């Protein structure tokens, strides 16, 4: 299949017929120009096109490297010890190696979203036609693809239009990946610039995927009132055959729902999901339900509640098949990226595959046709469920107690546990019949089963935890608002000014995976704190699920208490991982729709606008994956700070500002060209918070922007100071850096703060029209 189109652009052609200017020929596609905005400076930017912008950010937010590993083993020259000032056999030093690994991670992450988009679009074009219109919000959305327009300078209208952007993504990821080869890039900062580049490309890939599926599969279209769906371990009606879908790429799950619908079987079987496929299938159908985040795979499989498992791609446990076999649950793999060693039955007649699965002749099959997956999955589960009879491998209480009595308290389980859980102590209690400590551990458990692998007695410790927490788990049912998709243009018009002036103190994007240090409740707590404070809370992925998993005294979840509108005090679930692009899209649209900055291929200016004016900050409290790394990188290039939870320290480098270095915090005043000190706003581009308390204080502080009006700044400082005082027990010691004039001081704290300012020798500062780009200065001195 040839995908590539050939485009030829000729600035000037002299021929016998005369001189022809600006001729554009395209083979394979006629370019119809329907967008009257002139092309901006950087359409389809290459790896170095935006390097100057990256270096501006990297000068201010210098990398702090945290080598997770002292050696490099990427080529046969190695292993090379890179500790200190040593260099590897290829000449690379530790800083460059760390940034190279960050780049590698981001390339993996971006490639994953982009390949996801590619499979999705190929499937949707084949099934629904390449001319299917793109529609993510009907009349409420004019700017349908802010990232695509910004990065590529194209305005896609049909499914097939996305291919051009997708081709570009694939090309850029290949280039960036090649940079990590031995003997390529040597400078850590240039590696970092490519990290930002591939992050931007990743954002584009995500937008393409979500644009396509939202438009064609009829997901909620930028709907603040998207319906509530059921979520929780006890969500399935266990009297019905249950299909569990796991992964991120929704077509096979859609195949299941469609088959059930066509055969009139809706309501006769349960379809429940884990991870982002669960998000997307609930965007597709109200009959689907969500079990929970990525970390719940093992507990659900081992509990025997799934009669059939369909995996697609990404974040699926590599031992799904092994675990499923233990509970006699057949598995259907449905993506070329995750075949699990299974026989390819795509061309086999469905009846044969179904009977082989039902008769347990094969533990699972690979089917690379979403509709066929639907048929085989449904027909199989109907026959398998009665045979399985919810067979599970969660031990009985007596078995847990007996094992606990044999536990030698050797500590191997605890030392293998990423969260250092006191399992030996809990086993000691269990030996005496008290299973509560084991149940408590389940609350903070990321479901990795490293404890199982480590135990010299081969105790299935994770299953012990599940047994201990079983009663509570079975009761758990919550409500989550399904992913609404994009943010409407009209919402942006309404909140643009309050965000840019600072009256809405910030936009907090709580996103990412479930590698939490102390369970998901902390995420819900953080979300509610900021919703109450009338920030705009945006969420997606596993974090959006965790936000649902807490109820108040009346039994209501946060999604039932707070609106889904992109407005102060809203909790806005945009959807799955790929829907993260809408969060970036909202920031971009603020610059474009509210501030009327040109969008088309105008990356640098828009990023400069966002960085200096839009008080947005990302929190990925449980980030674990390479995708999370590339998602963060996309936000960094837009100048949006990202905070990760403590496990995120293992991403190997932070991008940290130094508030004590005055010279780092100057911007140009676009009105005059003067260089003006604006304080450390925002202080960091990427950092780790050690505790939820620290995360909350950091969120409030990282929403400060140079452009805040005095009223806005006072509001932001009120939140920062209030949280600092409440959670740290003291006033912050850096307020003087954020007060530009006395009107910035929150009225309620005026006396206390003015005294503090005096002690610090504070002087009044100007409030500029801030930019880091000299070319945006409107009038230079002397002009």
């Amino acid at each position, binding site marked *: 299949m040839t995908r590539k189109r050939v485009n030829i652009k000729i600035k000037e052609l002299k021929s016998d017929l005369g001189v022809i200017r600006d001729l554009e020929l395209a083979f394979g596609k006629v370019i119809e120009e329907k967008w009257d905005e002139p092309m901006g400076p950087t359409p389809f930017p290459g790896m170095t096109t935006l390097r100057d912008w990256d270096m501006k950010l990297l000068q201010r937010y210098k990398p702090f490297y945290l080598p997770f590993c002292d050696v490099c083993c990427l080529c046969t020259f190695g292993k090379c010890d890179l500790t200190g000032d040593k260099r590897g056999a290829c000449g690379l030093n*530790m800083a460059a190696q760390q940034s190279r690994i960050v780049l590698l991670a981001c390339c993996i992450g971006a490639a994953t979203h982009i390949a996801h988009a590619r499979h999705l679009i190929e499937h949707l074009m084949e099934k629904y036609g390449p001319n299917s219109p793109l529609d993510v919000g009907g009349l409420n959305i004019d700017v349908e693809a802010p990232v695509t327009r910004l990065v590529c300078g194209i305005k896609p209208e049909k499914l097939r239009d996305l291919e051009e952007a997708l081709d570009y993504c694939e090309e850029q990821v290949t280039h960036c990946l090649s940079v990590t080869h031995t003997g390529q890039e040597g400078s850590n900062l240039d590696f970092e610039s490519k990290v930002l580049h591939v992050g931007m490309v990743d954002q584009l890939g995500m937008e393409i995927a979500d644009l396509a599926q939202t438009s064609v599969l009829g997901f909620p279209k930028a709907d603040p009132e998207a319906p509530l769906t059921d979520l929780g371990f006890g969500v399935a009606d266990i009297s019905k055959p249950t299909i569990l879908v796991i992964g991120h790429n929704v077509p096979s799950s859609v195949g299941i729902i469609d088959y059930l619908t066509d055969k009139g079987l809706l309501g006769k079987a349960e379809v429940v999901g884990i991870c982002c496929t669960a998000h997307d299938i609930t965007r597709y159908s109200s009959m689907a339900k969500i079990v929970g985040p990525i970390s719940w795979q093992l507990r659900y499989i081992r509990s025997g509640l799934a009669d059939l498992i369909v995996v697609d791609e990404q974040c699926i446990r590599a031992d799904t098949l092994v675990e499923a076999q233990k509970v006699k649950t057949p598995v259907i793999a449905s993506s070329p990226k995750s075949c699990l060693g299974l026989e390819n039955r795509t061309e086999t007649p469905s009846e044969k595959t179904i009977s082989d699965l039902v008769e347990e002749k094969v533990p699972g099959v690979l089917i690379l046709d979403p509709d066929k997956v639907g048929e085989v999955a449904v027909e199989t589960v109907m026959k398998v469920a009665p045979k399985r009879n919810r067979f599970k491998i969660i031990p009985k209480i007596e078995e847990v107690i007996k094992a606990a009595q044999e536990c030698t308290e050797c500590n191997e389980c605890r030392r293998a546990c990423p969260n250092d859980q006191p399992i030996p102590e809990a086993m000691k209690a269990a030996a005496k019949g008290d299973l509560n400590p084991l149940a408590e551990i389940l609350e903070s458990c990321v479901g990795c089963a490293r404890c199982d692998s480590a135990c010299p007695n081969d105790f299935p410790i994770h299953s012990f935890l599940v047994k201990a927490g079983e009663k509570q788990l079975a009761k758990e049912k919550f409500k989550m608002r399904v992913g609404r998709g994009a943010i409407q243009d009209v919402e942006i018009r309404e909140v643009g000014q309050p965000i840019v002036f600072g009256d809405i103190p910030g936009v907090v994007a709580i996103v990412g995976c479930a590698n939490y240090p102390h369970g998901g409740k902390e995420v819900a707590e953080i979300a509610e704190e900021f919703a109450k404070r009338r920030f705009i809370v945006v969420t997606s992925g596993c974090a959006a699920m965790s936000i649902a998993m807490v109820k108040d005294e009346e039994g209501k979840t946060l999604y039932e208490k707070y609106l889904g509108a992109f407005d102060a005090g809203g909790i806005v679930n945009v959807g799955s991982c790929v829907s993260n692009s809408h969060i970036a899209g909202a920031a971009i649209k603020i610059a474009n729709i509210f501030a009327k900055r040109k969008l088309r291929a105008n990356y640098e200016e828009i990023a400069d606008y966002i960085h200096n004016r839009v008080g947005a900050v990302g929190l990925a409290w449980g980030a674990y994956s390479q995708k999370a790394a590339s998602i963060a990188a996309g936000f960094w290039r837009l100048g949006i700070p990202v905070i990760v939870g403590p496990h995120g320290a293992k991403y190997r480098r932070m991008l940290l500002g130094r508030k004590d270095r005055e010279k780092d915090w100057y911007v140009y005043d676009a009105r005059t060209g003067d260089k003006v000190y604006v304080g450390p706003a925002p202080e960091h581009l990427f950092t*780790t918070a050690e505790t939820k308390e620290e995360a909350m204080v950091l969120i409030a502080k990282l929403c400060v922007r140079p452009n805040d009006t005095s009223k806005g700044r006072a509001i932001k400082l009120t939140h920062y100071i209030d949280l600092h005082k409440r959670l740290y027990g003291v006033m912050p*010691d850096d307020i003087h850096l954020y007060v530009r004039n006395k009107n910035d001081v929150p009225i309620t704290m005026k006396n206390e703060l003015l005294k503090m300012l005096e002690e610090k020798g504070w002087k009044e500062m100007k409030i500029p029209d801030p930019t880091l780009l000299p070319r945006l200065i409107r009038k230079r001195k002397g002009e």
Partner: protein
Amino acid sequence: MSAKAEPWQTAEIAGPKKALLILKPEVVVAMVKRAKRPILIVGHHAAEDYSDDVKMIDYAIRMSKTTGIPVVATAHTISEFIKRDFHSVTCMPAMDIGNRLVDPEWKGLDGKGPYDLALFMGLPYYMEFVILAGLKSFSTNLKTISLDRFYNPHATWSFPNLSVKDWNESFEIIVNKLGGE
């Protein structure tokens, strides 16, 4: 006291260059006494873990009171110091203090010059692990000591994995000997 240099979290392997084992608490005493500019960094676990009656944070306070060593409290740990009526402590995120310690031009909390010894306690194990790795490779003239109960191999010196009892005893010796000549 066992002397096996194994990282507490089994897979957190470091090296070739790994922390020397503190087999006797006197090593810490000597290092602190020899240091011209030591600093103590205390994470939030210091107020939570280890034993019901004695917490690491209490040792941190005693150490600082005895020697005048400046204390940085990371995350919300400052609130725990204040609860204990100890106020000469600077509040700073762990990443920020790590980042300053690799900067040879940083003049310290008091502006009087760079530190030559950083003692760590109470950070999440893996977070301290990577921060110490950063300091090992990127700081100049800085030695690090992990005072946690567990071997943290990227430090210059670290306790081996200790029982609470051994660890408490070590700390008593350190604090007492730091007080004397």
